[in-house]
């Protein structure tokens, strides 16, 4: 049987890739190791958060699934950082992991050209420099034009609980054991990473009286722009705290920790440390916060966020019992550390296609990232680009100034990663414009052009943008009278002042201006936040615009594929090695490679323009590279 595209793995990367490709009417085969576990949340069943929430919105704006799934399957919604500026808000939802899997399957089955098959891929078939198909464990062979690999932590996965370890892809699932070697035989290098997860406890055994209740927001924000569904809080979370006793138990058991006895050698994420790391590194603290998060409304399983560990089961039990409220709690799944193979993403093009094997795409955790959202946006971009390749259209590379997805992929393919990569707002140099409120404006035009989103949705959003612009203009023109204003605000003005200028002041909100002036702005929370954010950040965004413009010209200075760096004299050896390894697509990308200096870039520019017969102007060569 032959398909246009085969997607290997039905985690958060794989489902986006398969879905978007099928949405564009290509024939897609999605291979999963377990049909009931598509869209499984193997770690914390939550989606979004600071920076990650923005990625979910971007995925949604580009026609992806994640936003719609979580709006339906979410059971507890909170807007993080809501006391700060909207550029760093992060929408976060606790998911019902059972419902999330069900929603995933339903969404996939709604795509007529998408076939789903349970099976483990054993080998990739290559014809010359291009892929041709896959072989699954039953021996069946499937032909295709492109493959998207999204196996998550399954490759040679090894789970650790204490000093005992067993092969596993996720908890309770077998790993994929032959595929790494097969991929390596194609000339692609693999590495090894580690991550961990927390013990799950039985909600019936928790004394909630002793914990702090954390309800969801009163008016939850949806992730999706489609506004198909109004998110509902269906549960509450609970906050607890480790004690001196907990830390003592951990310290006394470090000789049975696979992390501290050297059994796990791979690098784990610095930003999501295990409780043993936290206790060792911040020994002086008297306690660490724990969040008890329900995994589903259908059962009583609680995720113990903050207690990620790979200590032995008996130690985990003692640790849990040392926390107030959990004295009698029963662990129903122990926490575990997991080591798995990944492929250094420096071996990828910015389209997520392998630089070594044509039409072979890599997405998600196998690229060294961590997090469902990071995985989803890679799956989506890999899916979009595989389609573009097959239908012979131009590939999509999102710029760092357009999206977190762009930042993520550029970081991966330019800088690589040696530890599980998690997205932060501070990784985005243009974060003041990469906000949740404008993901649609930033990305929907691209999505609409490619037919990734429904025409009606795009038109509806366009009408909203028009209204937003109209109100903004009104606010720019409306003069506010000092007498009237000063009565209602501590931010005094001396003379009539434009409403927009008032909003630009840090302490003034759009709401205050509306209340004072009675200006008729539609009562639509999303629209109002959009207007306010646009006005408040406008000045800063403008300051960055020149910078972006300059960077763009730099991005457009394309370095020819197979450019011979050895022909460039004057390049420092360190730079030459790095450039040859990464083979950047443009001078812009080259300039972001750590260790490549502006002097190297100037030299390179001379050669590139010579080869290319394009003129790289002195101005383009300017600063801020």
């Amino acid at each position, binding site marked *: 049987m032959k398909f246009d595209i085969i997607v290997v793995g039905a985690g958060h990367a794989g489902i986006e890739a398969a879905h978007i490709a099928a949405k564009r009417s290509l024939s897609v085969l999605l291979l999963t190791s377990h049909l009931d576990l598509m869209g499984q949340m193997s770690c914390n069943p939550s989606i979004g958060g*600071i920076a990650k929430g923005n990625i979910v919105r971007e995925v949604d704006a580009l026609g992806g699934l994640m936003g719609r799934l979580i709006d339906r399957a979410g059971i507890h919604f909170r807007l993080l950082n809501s006391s*700060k500026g909207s550029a760093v808000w992060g929408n976060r939802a606790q998911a019902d992991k059972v419902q999330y899997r069900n929603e995933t399957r339903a969404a996939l089955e709604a795509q007529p050209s998408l076939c789903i098959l349970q099976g483990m891929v054993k080998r990739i078939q290559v014809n010359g420099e291009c892929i041709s198909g896959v072989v699954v464990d039953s021996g069946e062979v499937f032909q295709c034009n492109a493959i998207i690999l999204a196996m998550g932590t399954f490759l040679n996965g090894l789970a650790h609980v204490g000093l005992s370890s067993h092969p596993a892809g996720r908890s309770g699932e077998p790993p994929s054991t032959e595929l790494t070697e097969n991929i390596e035989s194609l000339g692609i290098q693999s590495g090894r990473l580690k991550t961990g997860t927390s013990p799950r406890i039985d909600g019936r055994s928790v004394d909630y009286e002793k914990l702090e209740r954390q309800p969801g927001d009163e008016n939850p924000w949806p992730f999706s722009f489609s506004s198909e569904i109004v998110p509902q809080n269906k549960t509450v979370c609970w906050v607890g705290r480790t004690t001196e006793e907990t830390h003592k138990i951990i310290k006394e058991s470090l000789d049975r920790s696979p992390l501290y006895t050297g059994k796990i050698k791979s690098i784990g994420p610095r930003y999501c440390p295990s409780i043993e790391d936290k206790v060792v590194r911040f020994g002086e*603290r008297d306690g660490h916060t724990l969040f008890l998060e329900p995994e589903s409304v259908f059962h009583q399983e609680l995720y113990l966020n903050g207690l990620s560990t790979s200590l032995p089961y008996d130690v985990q039990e003692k640790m849990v019992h040392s926390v107030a409220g959990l004295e009698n709690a029963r662990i129903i799944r122990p926490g575990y550390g997991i080591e798995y193979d990944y492929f250094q993403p420096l071996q990828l093009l910015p389209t997520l296609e392998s630089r070594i094997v044509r039409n072979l795409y890599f997405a998600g955790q196998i690229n060294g990232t961590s997090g469902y959202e990071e995985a989803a946006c890679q799956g989506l971009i890999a899916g979009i680009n595989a389609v573009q390749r097959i239908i012979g259209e131009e590939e999509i590379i999102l710029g760092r100034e357009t999206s977190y997805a762009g930042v993520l992929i550029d970081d991966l393919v330019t800088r690589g990663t040696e530890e599980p990569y998690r997205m932060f*707002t*501070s990784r985005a140099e243009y974060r*003041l414009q990469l906000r949740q409120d404008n993901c649609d404006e930033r990305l929907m035009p691209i999505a609409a052009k490619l037919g990734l989103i429904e025409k009606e949705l795009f038109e509806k959003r366009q009408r909203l943008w028009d209204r937003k612009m109209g109100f903004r203009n009104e606010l720019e023109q409306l003069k506010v009278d000092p007498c009237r204003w000063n009565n209602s605000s501590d931010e005094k003005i001396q003379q009539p002042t434009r409403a927009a200028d008032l909003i630009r002041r*840090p302490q003034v909100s759009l709401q205050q201006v509306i209340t004072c002036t009675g200006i008729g702005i539609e009562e639509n929370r999303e629209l109002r936040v959009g207007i306010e954010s646009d006005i408040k950040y406008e000045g800063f965004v403008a300051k960055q615009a020149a910078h972006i413009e300059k960077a763009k010209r730099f991005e457009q200075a394309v370095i020819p594929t197979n450019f011979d760096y050895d022909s460039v004299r*004057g390049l420092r050896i360190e730079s030459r090695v790095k450039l040859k390894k990464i083979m950047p697509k443009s001078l812009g990308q080259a300039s972001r490679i750590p260790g490549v200096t502006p002097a190297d870039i100037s030299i390179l520019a001379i050669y590139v323009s010579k080869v290319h017969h394009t003129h790289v102007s002195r101005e383009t060569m300017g600063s801020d590279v």
Partner: protein
Amino acid sequence: MEGRSTIAAPATGTGRRSALAIIRISGPKAFDITKKCLEEKERFAAAKARRIALFSFKSIGNGEIIDEVTAIKWFAPRSFTGENMVEIICHGGSAIVEEIMWELQKAGAEMAGKGEFTRRALENGKIDLLRAEAIRGMIESESAIEIRSARHLYGGGYAAAVERWREKLITVLSEIESNIEFSNEDDIKERASSRDFGIEKIAGEIEKELKKREKIAFIEMGLRLVIAGPPNAGKSTLFNYLIGKNRSIVDSEPGTTRDTVSERCRVGEWDLVIVDSAGMRDGAGRIEAEGMLRASEEIASAQIVIWVTASDEELQDKEREWIGALSKQKVICVINKIDIGDGRKKENQIVAENIPVIKISLKNEVNCEKVMDVVEKLVQKIMVDSELPDMIQNARHEEIVERMRNEIVSASEVYAPEIAAFYLQRALQCVEELVGHTASEETLDKIFSDFCIGK
């Protein structure tokens, strides 16, 4: 590098007669071009790197020998510029240097632009921007303090100092960032405000750097010494004595110098700008009053003030008031005309104000050399007392640090942490600019335009 021109220029100063001169040639054709001009072509071609040898330099046109020279070959990349280089040492006469340069150009060399050798060294990764600046500093420094500053740049002391500033900024920034990124997570309390992250403290420290720079601006501008005092006390005569020529019009009519007059001269190793100012007196006319206003401005901005007063006149109340207002650390009083009065009473009155007094007669040149001695001591003291800024060694640094200060002040004034971070990021970019990590073509042009040719 392929496609690059070969440049040549004298590396030693021109215009003055000297025993020897050095001419440098750098670029892909440095060896070919030199070979064309030498009698002993094969010997030159076979010469090893960094070995000196004697050759006859001749005219390409008529084959006439121009000079006996020595030449050294340097092979890329182990040369100053990182390219093939030749250094020719010839006799120092300017005509010889010119003729040799002319021959080299006929052989295919281009006349080097300002600072082009150093620029090539920079572009070929042989030196970094700070070293390039340091080289300029060393070439141009005329005082011990400037050389100290250039060495600070060249030896990496400066880079280390800037690195300390970068670390300070990053420490604050990372606190703000973790407050943004991890506000929901373990034990990082959500702080809505960007205040109390210590931004003001850094702003204050940078302000201090700029103040230090302001204080020592005279190192580049020259120390200002102002001669002030009542009319007709001999200010202009002292001015002329100090600079050694008749610059100010001297007349016995009071109020002759109505504007300020200045002249540059050297005291020991320091540059001094000596300023002659209008006489200060009560009840002056409009034009004179304007002159007095300028004089008091000069006094305020000067590092040294010599108050000149005459021995034959009583100390008026107004003059006492003026003297009393002078900053004691920088003032010397000269009582002139001891040929016509002993000035003892005035001396006692002024010494009582804690001001050192020298009694002289400019007319008979009595004690005049003492004035210079005291000035020199005062200059030494000012130099020793001046604290050098860590981060600012030249005008380029000063301009960047000023921008950096402005960004940090903006960061300290805002409430939202993401906006504070925005400004701090820009301040960090300034640090990058300081050490040349993100030097733009523009910056490079600016730096190298101040170079002299041949460096």
